[in-house]
């Protein structure tokens, strides 16, 4: 917690001597601030600071959660980066999803946001329809999509076949599994739609009118009026999207498990990422290493890899979008 407390200390030992009353007042304010912040100060140190340090510690240990941990230096790190067979596919899948999913989400979300601002009749219905899937619990949405896209009896393939379109195997085909996950994610675009819609409605109307008088077509109006004013929001959507996709877990895991048809009970160890590790993501690998193989050290190494990437993206966010921070700073 010293990070938060220490910048305050100079105030207490300010060079200029202060009247006792003033000093008492300052101390009172400091205590007041600490009091109000205390839930978070405790939470941050106990549920964030400690486990982060412990993760670094365990990454240098051999530990199977039964015997005492023993120091092995960089062996876990070397194992993860050079020998672990699933690290490559997991990292590849996560990066693939980060690039494709985030890009398509932003484009699609912006498209739906634009559409909603153009609708004249039944706005309420359309907005609710576009927003509701975002609220569906991820597990429920995934179970529903595994059913809808079931290659044998799913309604989607029934319709495609009726239309004479060759139907893919979706979650059961290694080439289609990730695109299926992307589709599931596009279905839940509601949050981005709302953000983009709000940003689009904030663009000053006069600018559109001025552009129209200058003879600008629809594309020119978008390019020179809309786009410059919504770029901060687009950037925000990209960066939060990247951070979220780095954590992508539930949908990939549930889709893989259900599509594989494996019966799951407590203690069942399944190879994650069905089919052919095509849906295995880094967070799944952390879980699998730490809680199924009890290779705590390697799991902690992978956690730290996630941490470094997430922090890098967050730093980028801070740099590029200072607006997230206190406005008066």
């Amino acid at each position: 917690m010293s990070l938060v407390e220490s910048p305050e200390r100079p105030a207490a030992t300010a060079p200029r001597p202060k009247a006792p009353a003033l000093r008492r007042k300052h101390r009172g304010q400091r205590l007041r601030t600490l009091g109000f912040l205390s839930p978070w100060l405790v939470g941050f140190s106990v549920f964030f600071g400690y486990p982060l340090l412990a993760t670094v510690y365990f990454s240098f240990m051999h530990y199977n959660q039964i015997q005492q941990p023993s120091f092995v230096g960089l062996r876990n790190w070397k194992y993860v980066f050079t020998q672990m067979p699933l690290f490559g596919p997991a990292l590849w899948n996560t990066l693939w999803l980060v690039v494709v999913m985030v890009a398509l989400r932003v484009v699609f979300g912006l498209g739906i946001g634009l559409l909603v601002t153009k609708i004249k009749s039944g706005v309420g219905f359309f907005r609710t329809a576009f927003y509701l899937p975002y609220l569906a619990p991820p597990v429920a949405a995934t179970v529903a999509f595994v059913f809808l896209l079931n290659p044998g009896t799913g309604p989607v393939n029934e319709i495609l076949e009726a239309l004479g379109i060759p139907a893919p195997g979706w979650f059961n085909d290694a080439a289609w599994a990730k695109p299926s996950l992307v589709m599931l994610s596009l279905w839940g675009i509601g949050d981005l739609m709302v953000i983009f819609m709000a940003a689009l409605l904030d663009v000053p109307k006069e600018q559109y009118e001025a552009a129209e008088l200058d003879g600008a077509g629809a594309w020119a109006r978008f390019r020179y009026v809309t786009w410059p004013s919504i770029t901060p929001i687009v950037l925000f959507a990209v960066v939060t999207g990247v951070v979220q996709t780095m954590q992508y877990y539930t949908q990939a895991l549930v889709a893989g498990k259900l599509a594989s048809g494996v019966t799951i009970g407590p203690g069942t160890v399944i190879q994650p990422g069905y089919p052919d590790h095509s849906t295995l993501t880094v967070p799944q690998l952390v879980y699998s290493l730490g809680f199924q193989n009890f290779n705590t050290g390697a799991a902690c190494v992978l956690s730290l890899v996630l941490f470094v990437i997430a922090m890098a993206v967050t730093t980028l966010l801070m740099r590029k979008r200072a607006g997230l921070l206190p406005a008066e700073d």
Partner: protein
Amino acid sequence: MTTTTLRAGSAPARTGTTDRGPAASRARRKRLLHWIAVHSVAVAAALFFVLPFVFVFLTSVMSDDQAMSGELWPHEWNWSNYATVFATPGFLDWWRNSLMYAGLGTLFTVGSAIPVAYALAKFRFRGRRIAMLLVISTMMLPPQVIVIPMYLVWAQQLHLSGSLWPLIIPMAFGDAYSIFLLRQFLLTIPQEYIESAKVDGCGEVRTLLRIVVPMAKPGIAAVALFQFFYCWNDYFGPQIYAAQNPAAWTLSYGLESFKSAHNVNWNLTMAATLLVMAPVIIVFFFAQKAFVEGVTLTGVKG
């Protein structure tokens, strides 16, 4: 950026409908074509968003045999499927656990986030910027980064694995996302109200409870809703701590194993799926405004 601006989108742009002449009728035709084009795209998009719900619902009332056939419309409406789902051993426990996790989690989160967000929004103190940076950083962090040491503490030292307490208790100590969201909202409350309360002799705690909290109700509602849904939807947390003990499973975690146990019964699975979605959707219809406000606050305010 408030919800009031959102409604501007529905304002009809019909002007000059009383004009006559060929130019006006051309313009009217153009507007009509535009209307048709926009609404056709909207209907097509709406199908993509709504049809999954429709198919899920239709399947949930089919007979066991028909649910496997790939047919789209139910021959008969078997409402009893829902009763069968409720009668499945454990299903009611999962409801109770989900409600407990989401209810207590929301209560704890709101209670702890209010003072912290207030201090970050309204107090001037050194290190505020760093504190805010740390809040945002924790908000951005994948939960998998710190889960292993936390699990070891809860399981080996406190012997609380097999229950949802390791997920609920930390929420009494401030959740970064909720603190951030609420702080963004509190920034919009004019400083004058707080100062005049102080002039009237209110201490900080009284000012917070009497002035700030009543004014911040919409923000608090948004935080509460998001936290409720976060807990309701959480899969990773219950998987880590409750997996070994089916009596502690939540609906979100249990649903997937429900499918595994009923391997061929898509109708029952879809009924269960809808039952997991239902509370979220019902709450949404009662609290739409708080929701939209919350989403825009996190995304746009700055």
